[in-house]
């Protein structure tokens, strides 16, 4: 059987080093000592010197702790019994339920063969016009929500989860405040969605290394459900905490940092997780929504920056609204031609005019005289913000498009919008509100 080692040579941060033989790369070990025990994983081998990261952290580990290698890498259980349950980052139950150890599957498996993917084709309806109309969410998309701390990104995630038509919801919490975790659990329960959810939660109080495991464990489970023909929605919050944990380990391992202390492989590490989003040829799908907080509202910070290059678009959440500028769903073109034929035009026109409104606001702030055109833009911008941008709006796509036409008609003449004549003839509302008269 596997050997047990009693002598730890080095302890630095969450990383311990033992001299051992016959150990494989990424193998798990159980470390036990008088007051505790923890899993640990091999992260570097140099001759007989084996470095392991300890999930529970290095604090309190004595040099004579027992290190027993388990002969396999990180695994998680997969069965129907997972539904409705809450686990920690290392897969231990967090609720009072029994632990599950049947049908163990490895985590962090190989990536999907691109030849087995199909072009995503189903829209995910959320009832939020800023998403449905302007940046449509598509099944199997990977999309982060960029925001600063304090914005309601978690309620937004929860709301999308509840309104989206999916079979299984998997929530991965990283560095969550305990009350945020309870918020998710209670919201899912209230709406009767907990029975189709699995939660893997690492709270801010838990050891750092467990945080690193959360995305992999969530996505391994999601992959299994997807292979069983289920449509899975994975929510990850907050990926910046995940990246920070990675940074912590990298620095402990004395790796050369590349940008603001983050390891050089930050991009690859994030990509390995996000790329698990997939629409399988002849099986289910995985859609990933992830919150990424931007330290100092800086989108050029390495975490949001690298994320933006990996994901298929991003939503900016700012001042309780999804910003139309910068927010983007790269996959929207795949579905918004099939919804209604005015969808794309409304989407582009309204944003272009909204950009004009922003310019006018700047001019106004500098005290310039407002032209007739400026007045129109001002009126338009205000209605756009109140009636479509507000997160409290909850209407289906078609109603939102109709509302869009109405707002345009109330503020502009058809030619001023730049919409192709063929469309204005069909969709331009005839009953212009009286108030629209200048």
């Amino acid at each position, binding site marked *: 059987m596997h050997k047990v080692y009693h002598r730890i040579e080095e302890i630095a941060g969450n990383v311990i080093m033992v001299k051992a033989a016959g150990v494989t790369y990424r193998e798990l070990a159980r470390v036990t000592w008088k007051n505790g025990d923890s899993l640990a994983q091999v992260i570097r081998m140099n001759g007989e010197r084996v470095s392991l990261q300890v999930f529970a952290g290095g604090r309190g580990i004595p040099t004579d702790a027992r290190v027993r290698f388990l002969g396999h890498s990180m695994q998680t259980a997969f069965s129907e019994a997972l539904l409705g349950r809450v686990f920690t980052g290392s897969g231990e139950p967090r609720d009072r339920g029994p632990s599950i150890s049947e049908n163990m599957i490895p985590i962090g498996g190989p990536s999907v063969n691109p030849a087995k993917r199909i072009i995503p084709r189903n829209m995910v309806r959320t009832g939020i016009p800023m998403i449905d109309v302007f940046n449509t969410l598509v099944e199997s998309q990977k999309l982060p929500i960029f925001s600063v701390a304090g914005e309601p990104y978690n309620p937004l995630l929860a709301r999308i989860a509840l309104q989206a038509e999916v079979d299984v919801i998997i929530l991965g919490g990283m560095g969550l405040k305990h009350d945020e975790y309870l918020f998710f659990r209670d919201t899912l329960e209230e709406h009767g969605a907990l029975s189709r959810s699995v939660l893997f939660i690492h709270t801010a109080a838990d050891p750092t290394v467990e945080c690193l495991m959360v995305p992999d464990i969530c996505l391994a489970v999601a992959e299994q459900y997807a292979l069983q023909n289920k449509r899975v929605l994975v929510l990850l919050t907050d990926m910046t905490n995940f990246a920070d944990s990675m940074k912590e380990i990298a620095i402990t391992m004395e790796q050369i940092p590349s940008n603001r202390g983050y390891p050089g492989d930050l991009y690859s590490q994030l990509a390995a997780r996000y790329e698990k989003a997939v629409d399988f040829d002849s099986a289910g799908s995985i859609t990933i929504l992830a919150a990424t907080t931007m330290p100092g509202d800086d989108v050029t910070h390495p975490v949001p920056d690298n994320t933006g290059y*990996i994901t298929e678009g991003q939503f900016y959440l700012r001042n309780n609204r999804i910003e139309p500028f910068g927010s983007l769903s790269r996959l929207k073109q795949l579905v918004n031609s099939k919804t209604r034929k005015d969808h794309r035009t409304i989407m582009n026109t309204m944003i272009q005019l909204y950009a004009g409104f922003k310019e006018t606001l700047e001019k106004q702030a500098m005290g310039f005289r407002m032209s007739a055109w400026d007045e129109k833009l001002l009126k338009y911008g205000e209605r756009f913000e109140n009636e479509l941008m507000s997160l409290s709006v909850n209407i289906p796509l078609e109603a939102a498009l109709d509302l869009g036409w109405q707002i345009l008609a109330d503020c502009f003449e058809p030619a001023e919008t730049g919409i192709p004549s063929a469309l204005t003839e069909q969709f331009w509302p005839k009953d212009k509100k009286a108030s629209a008269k200048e």
Partner: protein
Amino acid sequence: MSENIGKIVGVNGNLLTVEFSSPVIQNEVGYAHVKGEKLKSEVIRIRGSRAELQVFEDTTGLMVGDDVQFTGELLSVELGPGLLSQVYDGLQNPLPALAAEAGFFLKRGMYLQALDRAKKWAFTPAVKKGATVSPADALGTVPEGIFEHAIMVPFHLKGKLTVEEISAAGEYDVEKVIARLKDAEGQLVEVKMYQRWPVKIPIRQYAERLRPTEPLVTKVRIVDTFFPVARGGTYCIPGPFGAGKTVLQQITSRYADVDVVIIAACGERAGEVVETLREFPELTDPRTGKSLMERTLIICNTSSMPVAAREASVYTAVTIAEYYRQMGLHVLLLADSTSRWAQALREVSGRLEEIPGEEAFPAYLESVIASFYERGGIVRLNSGKNGSVTIGGTVSPAGGNFEEPVTQSTLKVVGAFHGLSRERSDARRYPAIDPLDSWSKYFSVVDEKDLEFARRVLREGSEVNQMMKVVGEEGTSIDDFQLYLKSEYLDAVYLQQDAYHEIDGATSAERQKYVFGVIAKIMRTKMSFADKEAARRFFQNLTQVTKDWNRQDMESEEFRALEERIEKMIAEVKEYA
């Protein structure tokens, strides 16, 4: 080759330290043996009796003491008929065949032959017994999709060779020996339908390199007219995320006027490759009327696939491009994105604990990038025919800031720069190529004088716009205001293009010349308006009509009718001095 076995003494991420006893070669391929799997790897540093190898796979499960088998061969690709319309990973594994064997997921340590061994090709000899040939001369041809694929004398041979034996016309598979050649020393060399070539060494079997002068039409107006690309030239597209790099590359791969398109999806999203993969077979190539896939080859090493293979993928792609150039074809290589490739270099360099340069990129980044782009070019082959490899690479600068090492090193070596800007993409002005920052050293498809004038309008219009932000509209003269509106008009109807519209999405060179002529005339027309409001309204209407015009087939009635309408509108406001 005798067995050369080393032992693993260290593992750090995808980097192995291996102790060896017999000689090893820098950059040779080795296989790490683990529980019945063989993981391909490449020697990247040698120190004393220890070699460091980067593994092209995930290294989970490797053990100190495991065997590594050195092959004595550099990392190579197979070159022969059957490459086109294939989808390979960075190491030239055919992905569809891999899916048939391994299912949904990529299987570690599974390597398949790049060329289908079972497929028969109809060979027609081009030389007779006794003929004298040189390396890269055609010995015969096989039809491959839309081309006659030349079976060439292997590039690694030297000097003059005599054909001792050549197969008659017939159906053969690629393993068939189709010729035996005798070299100067009297050695007999067997020639199969395919040959192997190390990816990191350029193929240089040509008479001379020429200057790229012929335009490569992409049907994107802002590119062909303002920032053209030449056959055999190089260009780069840096831009922040979401600015439309990939869409621009996809459009180019679809419409570019070349024979072969090689797409190197290097460390980017898998979804984008899938779009090409699934859509191209359905689309027809406007040049040949056949499926677009028949002229396309995809090298796909997406972001979640192993990092070391990502570095190899751009070399695999450029080697295949050079191979088709040897047949006198025009090849376009699109690499998306070269930053991911540079990051792969950085990851490896970090693990080797090399002294880092700027932003932790290795100090040799610049020379590596330069030598990659230098593999492009238009050449006159020994046969007298011309062939070209045009390289277009996207760059994904951190934070969208062009002052970073990868963008800067790339700018030094390319012939055209298509800088994408966040402001333009935010304002939905696609393609978001910045008309003021970008440049090109190649020749445009339109009249140079008109172009110079249009550039001036754009530049001065933007200056007026900047000024208006300070002094306001009321402080701007009507002439300046008109200039500003003209620049906005040019931007809206010519620079911007609806990629998803059937007709507007692809503008032929001929149409560009015509339309640009009309618009240049409008730019030069002095107009008079009662006030600024009237001017604005006029240009709004004109933009609307011109956009409708862009959406009409050039041969149609509507096209002519709209053109007349535009002329009429202009005549109404024209200032008669």
